[in-house]
């Protein structure tokens, strides 16, 4: 049941993220949609590691059943990368606002090439 719930959440977040990236013109909202998409990917990684009867991957005894530790390590790394990207995007938005006076992509003169 929990796998199904997380799986559906994951798919729903992906849909919301992609829809938002395609439809939104406000730069901050685009960043938020990117973060939603990233959250969906991270949730997917955690879901891969999940096992109903397993404990956290800290071995207390050699026979302990534990969840896969690798996807968690991957998720941690992806969180760091996502935070860096978000910081860079927000910095660029501040600079675009200073130079263009707007954060709406459809108001930017050169946005469509």
């Amino acid at each position, binding site marked *: 049941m929990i796998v199904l719930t997380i799986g559906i959440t994951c798919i729903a977040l992906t849909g919301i993220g992609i829809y938002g*990236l395609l439809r939104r013109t406000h730069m901050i909202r685009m960043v938020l949609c990117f973060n939603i998409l990233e959250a969906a990917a991270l949730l997917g990684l955690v879901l891969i590691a999940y096992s109903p009867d397993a404990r956290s991957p800290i071995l207390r005894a050699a026979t302990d059943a534990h969840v896969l530790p690798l*996807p968690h390590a991957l998720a941690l790394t992806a969180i760091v990368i996502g935070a860096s*990207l978000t910081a860079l995007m927000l910095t660029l938005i501040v600079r675009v606002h200073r*130079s263009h006076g707007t954060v709406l992509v459809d108001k*930017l003169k*050169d946005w469509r090439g």
Partner: protein
Amino acid sequence: MNGLFTELPVLLIVIPLAGVPVLYFTARRGLGTALPALAVILFVVILLSSGARDAMHTPVVTAAGGWQPDLGIGLQFDLLAVAAMLVTSLIVAQAILSHDETSGAQHFRTLLMLLYAGSNGLMLTQDLFNAYVFIEITSIASYALVAGKQDRGGFESAFKYVVMGSFAGLLVLWGIAGLYLTTGTLDIQSLASRFEAAPGAVASLSAAAVIAGLLIKLGQVPFHAWKADSLSGASYTVSALLSGVTTTAFFVLLLRVLSALPSLTVSLAPILTTIAGLSIITGHLMALRQPRYSRLLAYSSVAHVGYGLLAVSSGAVTAIAAGLFHILVHAIMKSGLFFLGRSFLHTGNRSDRLEAIVFPEQHRTLHVTLYVLLAMSMIGIPPVLGFTSKWYAVLETARAGYDTGAALIALGGAVALVYYLRVGLQLVHRGLPELSSPGPASKRLPVPIAGTALILLLAAFSDRLLGFCVLAVVQLMETV
């Protein structure tokens, strides 16, 4: 093999990475960054050359930290990495030399070193998640470099680039997660054997997501528009890096992924061929109607990467080698054209609109000669290296049974002739504009001269260079 060579792949990433903080602090103290940056590249090239002989016999594979794949990360130093890293090192060195010692240039070199470390990692890694990390390192450095122009266009272009690049990065991450779920490994070599036994749709969709993410990074149709927007907003030097270094690194990673999934590559061949064909047509046709020099070159890059992808999707070893050879040659000649574009700025004119660009009066004949040689190479006119690389791409693609694709590559040259001729006539016939404050005379002319000399000299060794690429591809196929 001694200890140093066992750790060679690690050193090729760690040395440029260590150069990042060194250059940052050197720049902050107002000291020159050109010499330390060049020293890093020289050291990397020495390591590459000394390890190449060993890699000729068998690839140097290192398990980072002593942890063997699947638990640890494998780095593979093979002929493919040698060929690609020599080309990218040359372009990075040119980029370092193309700037004067200003504070902007010093911060530029710090970011450039990060890009260099990331691209080296991309070309060496055997671990998919590690590849994702290097994709993001390379990309973040690229986004910051594009924004480094510090003007309206630069910030806007950087934002577009970061949105599209991050989406591609997430697609790769999704694909990697799916591949790990279905195969239980992130190691590219282990993936080759486990993928066949993995349950069908999820594994195939995941691998397709990784490939799609890389194709977006390479600016292939239908996700090609960002390339022109980013390159036109960036400085000429950064555009040279994006079209030379990052394109080469992503192409090498794509080759590694495709070679690990032969059955999927065969199933995806019609799709890849279609994407490549559409990229060639769209790239050249869009280049025809561009009003700006950098956008014209960017769309031309879309078409040239399409040549490489078309040759690779045919699946034949010699065709893949010809595709790789063309991508490497394209990196040298396209970056040469961008470096040459810096000379337009020395007339005091900041615009790169085709009706406004003009070479400075000083060394004008030399500038025009360099443009003609580089453009001949891009079009595929003998005797320069671009002709032979394109000739092999046409020949080997046709031999692999892709006659239409080979015809597209050949026809692409005819279209390219029109738009490069248009720029050439503009540069030859247009007089120097009346400008109130002309800029300083170009002191960085040796940079495009080096690239042009290389495509002239190496043309004499085309057969050997293609032979080296064939060996690299054979080695790649044998190790997975």
